[in-house]
């Protein structure tokens, strides 16, 4: 009783697409961060699926690194966001547009 591996790959692809699409069209920085997480976790799911398919532990090792580094990355991002929101509450990405040209 097991679900075919390709379903997991499709789920991964769907999550990745949702994340990428959301990151490109949403304007709330916090929602954009969530989309980033969605993309990275889609990657993790794909790696784990392939790792099971190939019976190769290497793919799961990648997931460890992606998890940790993604956490570091998002923490830095939230830090940046907090420092911006301290100065300008409720900013959307469109409000942050001093630089053009």
């Amino acid at each position, binding site marked *: 009783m097991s679900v075919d591996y390709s379903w997991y790959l499709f789920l991964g692809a769907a999550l990745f697409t949702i994340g990428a699409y959301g990151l490109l069209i949403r304007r709330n920085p916090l929602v954009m961060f969530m989309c980033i997480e969605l993309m990275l976790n*889609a990657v993790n799911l794909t790696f784990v699926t392939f790792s099971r398919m190939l019976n190769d532990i290497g793919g799961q*090792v990648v997931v460890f690194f992606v998890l940790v580094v993604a956490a570091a990355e998002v923490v830095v991002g939230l830090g940046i966001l907090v420092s911006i929101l301290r100065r300008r509450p409720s900013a959307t990405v469109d409000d942050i547009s001093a630089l053009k040209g």
Partner: protein
Amino acid sequence: MDVLSGPVAGVFRAPDVDYHAFAPELVLVAVLVAVLVVDLVLEGRGRRLVGGLAGIGLLAAMVPVLTLAVDGANRSMVGGAYVVDDFALVFKGLFLIAGYVTMLLSSDYLADDDYYEGEYYFLLLSSVLGMMVMASSRDLISIFVALELLSIPAYMLAGWRKRDLKGNEATLKYYLLGVFATGVMLYGMSLIFGITGETVLTEIGSKLQGPGASLPLVSLGIVFVIVGFAFKISAVPFHSWAPDTYEGAPTPITAFLSVASKAGGFVALMQLVFIGFLGRDDVWQPMFWVLAALTMTVGNLIALRQTNIVRMLAYSSVAQAGYMLLPFAVAGDLAKGPGAAMGPMTTYLLIYAAMNLGAFALVLAVARKTRSGEIASYGGLFEYAPGLTVLMSIFVFALAGIPPLGGWYGKLVVFKTLLDANTPWAIVLGVIAAVNSVIALYYYASVAREMWMRPVPDGDTTPVRVPAGLTAALSLCAVATVVIGVYPQVVARFGDLAVFSLLP
């Protein structure tokens, strides 16, 4: 991955660590920790000490790089995932020097600002460490970790002036697009891992030349990985963050990003493409053709109408990345094999590093007096700062590729690669590149015209006081630019070294 499969098999053999090969990174890690601890103990009172320590650390890490270069042996560790060869050493040297020049640029800039924090040096060293690791990474995991180690500190450095609106915007744009690119690259890596079942590049390379390599999923993976790095090297259409981030970040960091970070992206691309994806030039070659043509043309055309010197240099560095991409676009058609495209790229990168760092150092020096980034504020610079005017002319004409200054040789080797390939597509690309060089000359020369022929805008002709660190950086870059232009054999040698060690 014998380290990890150990417990499953019930035996574990501690890997032989080649400490000599790891020495540059180990030195850098030790200095990094020392900088953090010293800054914590002194609580910001020892700013000169921390800066000095970081600078000495970068130079100290250069020593093992040199001893490894003298030794000359290729060292492969962790099952081929981490390789120290001439290619890696050439770029480690470049990253250390670029880091040191950034340090020289930063010291007075930070002292003038009220934003001084000891973490600045810590972050800069971390980013350089990431680049050093990148130069040796021959495995998907280590490339990813190196990329993040060089990027995450760079996000923070770009937003260093955290009470400044432009700084905030610079870092947010850089961060969001950078992370997006990382996600795309990782997804590509997961597809490639899924098809080949390998993470080490040499293994992926041999699998991709066998059956199953032509699956569409492989092509998709390769495209995703290249798109991810196209953000890093700010290739059009993935360049939109670059000008805004360059303008909003502190200028020394802009110099660092435009040279070291871009070189880091190119190093990763070269390793991935020329080791991992070697057999699939049908996928990456057309892609690089389009990227190169777009990057040169769009970068140069937008640079034409910039009035701010930093934005102009930002678009110029986008365009320069286009020239550096040219050898990729014809690599598959070279008689000596695709790897032969690496020499010209390495040569161009080294020359570009010298002239671009120099140009940004000069922008810093002039901004100390004019407090402005507008090109118009360079009017009549010759009247009160003839030395700086001559230097700036050297850098901009070198970037334009006028002999006998450094840049011409970079252009020469790149064009020669296009001619070697000798396909219709290569010739078309060559024509596009030639037209672009002419366009570029126009905006580079307009800076020179402003400095030499226009009057001083506000009539203030007090001389510019250039601090020692900045003077050192300027002279270093100027000497390198001129010497390379007159004796191009110096960099050509490095370019050749970088090729042969990597070819199987």
